[in-house]
């Protein structure tokens, strides 16, 4: 029997907690929300406690926080239209760079695996790619206007500079830099969801992408390159992404977030029905038409919408989640 055991419930913020983000070493996580502050939490003995509060970085809701792969920088995306980058070169965390350019709410921020690029997106329908140009210096490399509605989330491929974005226009777009002219372009549009796509997560290999939507489904997409063995026709494109699995009938309201564990391969979802669900690929799953089973349902995981779920990058099956009522919870998943 699988179980999701609550390790700790934290009264984290005043109002909505929108996002939690694990430090790459898994010993610290950051949280943010409606109260416009960022909190850093660390483990003392068995319990998580607040280590640092980052204030005065933003004028409005902080929608998402993201640690750089090296763990030295924390980026925060805010409804105030800016993205802040924090570090503790001076000994304590300070905001040393502010990325301006979006017309209004910035909704997501993500670092590329090399840590050399940052992506942001927002209500102005655009996705921006920023390059780390030097100490505390970031330059805009590209403004991508592929979506025709606001863009909810950006996520990088785990090992290459391939970027994915999810939007209110019901689609997911994939972008890549052309090596010849260093222009960023949209190389694929993933169309199948029937409402807003709220979040997305790559698997460990980067060959698969999981997306979650207001249409109450989760979809698994798979990349097929030019010489794929399955015989999928790619035409003259670099690769195509096909929806190979749709998980419907499980979620009863909008699905706000999805996380794919790079160690165990387990998928967890955050849903507006207050439930956290865990899915696992079946043992006899067909690689080109995979099946995923719902292996655990945590009813009333929070007393309001679950906004975010994140597996600890250590692969220790710890899961962090947060909700509208200011709560953050740390869980431990076990599968027997």
């Amino acid at each position, binding site marked *: 029997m699988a179980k999701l055991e609550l390790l700790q419930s934290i009264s984290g913020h005043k109002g909505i907690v929108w996002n939690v983000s694990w430090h790459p070493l898994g010993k610290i996580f950051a949280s943010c929300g409606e109260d416009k502050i960022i909190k850093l939490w660390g483990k003392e003995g068995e319990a998580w406690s607040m280590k640092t509060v980052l204030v005065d970085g933003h004028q409005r*809701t902080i*929608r998402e926080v993201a640690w750089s792969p090296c763990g030295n920088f924390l980026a925060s995306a805010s*409804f105030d239209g800016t993205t802040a980058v924090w570090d503790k070169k001076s000994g304590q965390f300070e905001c040393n760079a502010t990325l301006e350019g979006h017309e209004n709410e910035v909704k997501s921020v993500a670092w590329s695996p090399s840590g050399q690029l940052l992506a942001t997106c927002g209500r102005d329908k655009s996705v921006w790619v920023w390059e780390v140009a030097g100490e505390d210096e970031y330059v805009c490399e590209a403004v991508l206007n592929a979506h025709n509605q606001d863009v909810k989330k950006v996520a990088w491929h785990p090992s290459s500079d391939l970027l994915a974005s999810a939007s209110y226009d019901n689609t997911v777009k994939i972008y890549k830099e052309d090596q010849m002219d260093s222009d960023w372009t949209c190389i694929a549009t993933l169309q199948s969801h029937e409402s807003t796509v709220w979040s997305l997560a790559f698997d460990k290999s980067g060959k698969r992408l999981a997306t979650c939507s207001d249409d109450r489904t989760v979809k698994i997409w798979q990349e097929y390159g030019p010489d794929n063995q399955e015989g999928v026709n790619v035409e003259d494109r670099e690769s195509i992404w096909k929806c190979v699995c749709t998980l419907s009938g499980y979620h009863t309201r909008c699905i706000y977030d999805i996380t794919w564990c790079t160690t165990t391969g387990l998928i967890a979802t955050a849903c507006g*029905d207050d439930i956290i669900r865990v899915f696992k690929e079946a043992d006899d799953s067909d690689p080109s038409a995979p099946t995923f089973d719902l292996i655990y349902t945590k009813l009333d995981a929070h*007393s309001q*919408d679950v906004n975010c779920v994140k597996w600890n990058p250590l692969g220790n099956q710890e899961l962090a989640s947060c909700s509208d009522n200011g709560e953050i919870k740390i869980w431990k998943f076990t599968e027997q």
Partner: protein
Amino acid sequence: MTKIADNVNPDVYDKGSEREVTTNERNEDIVDEFDQREVFDLIRNINDPEHPLTLEELRVVEEKNILVDNDKNVVNVYFTPTIPHCSMATLIGLSIRVQLLRALPSRFKVTVEVSEGTHVSEHAVNKQLADKERVAAALENNNLVQIINQCVVNS
């Protein structure tokens, strides 16, 4: 700013009677669940953004277009714009949603939608009202919050 209302001469209806308080409701030992009428009472006196009239008087909200499920913690409100191209539909929906977010216990999942077939942009309005991130962002806009507060002031 002067702007002519979308519907300059809307039909106006009489207000319904006040809710009668039953003896069971006065009895503290009896669990008093939320019902249609109670939710209706929370939103009937919301002011229309364009007319000195309430949503009840314009029949934008009606008791019969409210669904309450206490077991599932669900409240659905369907509102009917006075004309199908009403540019205020989103604002009216937002006012209803804000009023219910403020007045109902947080356990309720509140959905506010345009009554089927009563607005040209029904789908777009519904999608926007259902997007909690957009609603949250809108409620950080002071000008908009002031307008909404004027709408819900008597509720």
